[in-house]
């Protein structure tokens, strides 16, 4: 089925089988592999993207339901001031280890900072709880979200 998706500000024509999750359209059809496959059941957050500004698990979002939606992925998140601040904080604190979950972590962190400019530890724990990191970089993610809030306040 031919669909028109708006991804990172660009209009893309895709032709997935009915019922295909956005995750696999991004990865296999558009070769945008920054959005990761971790569990397929919305239990790890590695596939998090923004759909109309809201963090969503792309393994559960069907491509055919996204006509007209604004989709943002990790590849373009640095283009927003909050995304750039989060990436800068991640770099400053050397958050990553294996890095496989970090696309999703960053997408969730950006969504959190868009909603709450100055999150508490509790806010971070609540908002980031669905993003698993098997390397356990959590303490650095928490610190980097605070640091990104500092950067954004200038």
């Amino acid at each position, binding site marked *: 089925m031919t669909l028109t998706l708006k991804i990172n500000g660009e209009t893309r024509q895709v032709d*997935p*089988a009915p019922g*295909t999750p956005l995750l*696999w359209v991004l*990865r*296999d*059809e558009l*070769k*945008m*592999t*920054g*959005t*990761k*496959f*971790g*569990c*397929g*059941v919305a*239990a*790890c957050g*590695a596939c998090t993207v923004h759909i109309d500004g809201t963090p969503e698990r792309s393994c559960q979002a069907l491509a055919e339901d996204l006509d007209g939606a604004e989709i943002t*992925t*990790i*590849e373009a*998140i*640095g283009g927003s001031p909050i995304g750039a601040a989060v*990436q800068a904080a*991640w*770099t*400053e*604190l*050397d*958050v*990553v*280890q*294996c*890095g*496989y*979950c*970090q*696309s999703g972590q*960053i997408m969730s962190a950006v969504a959190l900072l868009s909603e709450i400019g100055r999150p508490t*530890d509790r806010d*971070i*724990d*609540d908002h*980031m*709880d669905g*993003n*698993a*990191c*098997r*390397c*356990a*970089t*959590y*303490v*650095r*993610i*928490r610190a980097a979200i605070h640091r990104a809030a500092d950067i954004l306040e200038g």
Partner: protein
Amino acid sequence: MTIDATRRGFLVGAGAALSGLAIGLDPRGALAATSATGGNITPFLTITADGTVTAIVKHFEGGQGVATGLSALIAEEMNMALEDIRWAHAPSDPARYGNLFFGGFQGTGGSTAMANSFLQYRTAGAAAKQMLIAAAAEAWGVDAAALALRDGVISGNGQEAGIGDFVEAAARMQVPAEPKLKEPAEFRIIGKEIRARRDTADKIDGRGIFAMDVQLDGQMVVALKRAPRLGAKVVSFDDTAAREVRGFIMAQALPSGDAVLAYAETTWAAFQARDALSIEWDLSEAETRSSEAIREELLEMVRTGSQFTGSAADLATVSAAIDGAAQVIEREFYFPMLAHAPMEPMGATIEPTEDGGVIMHDGAQFPTANNMVLGQVLDLPPEKIRINTLYAGGFFGRRATPSSDYIVEAALAFAMTDRSRPVKLVWSREDDITGGYYRPAMAHRVRVGLDPDGGILGWDHRVAGQSIFKGTAFEQMIVRDGVDGSSVEGIADGAYTIPSLHLGLTDARPATTVNWWRSVGHSHTGYVMESMMDLLARAAGADPVEYRLRYLDEAEPDGARMAATLRLAAEKAGWGAELPAGRGRGVAAHKSFGSYCAEVCEVSIDGDGVVRIEKVTAAIDCGIAVTPDVVRAQIEGGIGYGIGHVMRDQITLENGAVHERNFPDYEPLRMRDIAAIDVHIVPSTEAPTGVGEPGTPPAGPALANAIAAAGGPRVTRLPMTLSGVAFA
């Protein structure tokens, strides 16, 4: 700054010509230089005519920071900033990139990456510096002693020029027999607080390429439906429903009958087609036991005589000492099977080449094993097989198994095609969680006799579980007198000097496939030893830190280093300071992979008995900490990995089949689980030792000891949630 990860593997692997300087080992294993890669030298570093220095990293980067660590060694000796060095994964070449601790086998494991590379990569960097300066001295007609190299520029005697100007001349020079390495006092990078991970840029905007991300023109994707129990075999399958899936190509059973493969044009189609397969299994030889039955078998084994003895002290002497003791402390411990569950599910791509060979694209933990397996399955000579090593999305031991399980699957999947198209094997999370190669289930029973002052008179320690190494190609390296060292490491060979310790081991009958899991045997022996030390300290009426120090002989290096590490962790954690009601601290100290790690865990327990982990404070002595921030990150991660699993994870069998399927029932550590971690490094001038694994063993027992100290239960059966502990 960053090169596409797929391509840069080829830069070296394909033997592309390099106009510049490459320093590495020649076929005789001697340090040598060349102006072109792909010749007789596989390099540790290359320098191009534009002055770009690239570290060729012989271990795969799976998050442990090895790309940063090995780059730091070269940057140090070449007097350049860590931020200015590039890196690339090395190709598969065991003769020259072999792990010095694995007998020339190229592979990553046992927390050995830095320890076996420390002198090798520094020496290459020092040789490059010396040769570049010599080339400049010759060009300028001055004494080399008057010249210095810093930040890619050679200067002195009123002249200066970038190193790129001298790479060709340097490449024609004799390599110094013994390049002069820096003295530790001269270090500007090693041991310094620099945060400049070489893989960060690739991992914050989605550009880094993992095995899962390989997208080759014309590739097929393969998903598999594996036998539901150990020993089950395919009788027949029906792919009628799979044929309805758009993009389905074909289905094939593995020759072993262990799985049926679904081939499709995309990953989603492969998963859909796999799920649509109808398979008849022969279950006549299949495992039928449940986890509860296996647990009872293991506990029975440690209650009776052991099959093998792993200590010098004989049982009769030790038993006599215990029987005559003023107090006997006895406990049984049980550890469930555990999956590694790295974030990236297993998978690899095999690409045919024009010369009839293949390239395997993989986050390759054991490239040498991959080469051997591909050669056997595809009947190809070694020179027709290349390994393109990519980022690995975590491993914790899982990307290498004694049988090279997923590599064999990928090779067979390719072999069953006409070999004209690349074949990419992709595991789902369910394939990973149910896919075997677990940390084996283990039982321990420990009886310790104490004298009236609480001193240890005798220690009878029995272990039972499935051997990881017996029956594998690695058996001879690990098994001694019937004892698989990986089942008992950390008991009799720890840092403590324990009088009269008897160690017995009984091998359990295989129920699943088992594997090394972050910290291997230490993942359970550390828990038992450190829980027992806590129980003994309490029985002796002694402070747990003080009691441990009694058994650390500070006249010996092991005892002295562990004692210093324990004291540092205790001091930084405020050990001994008053705590409010409902709080408790627990300590654990364990040596593994040549390193000494001590951790203090502080918990609170609320009125409903719910435990919250407030803080973990750790100290690590890993010899020289080459990149201290990477060391801290590894200990932070090791703590999280250790704690997450002891809290609530287990793999169980029901009638021989794995019950857990995905993260909802194999719940990973989450952000909320640990409020804070604080890691301190013991200053050291000793040679570097491991950091990837040593943070894990003390984490579980430190938590267990903290829960007991706070008034909660003493947990000897894991996971803790099965022993009446609830977490926030």
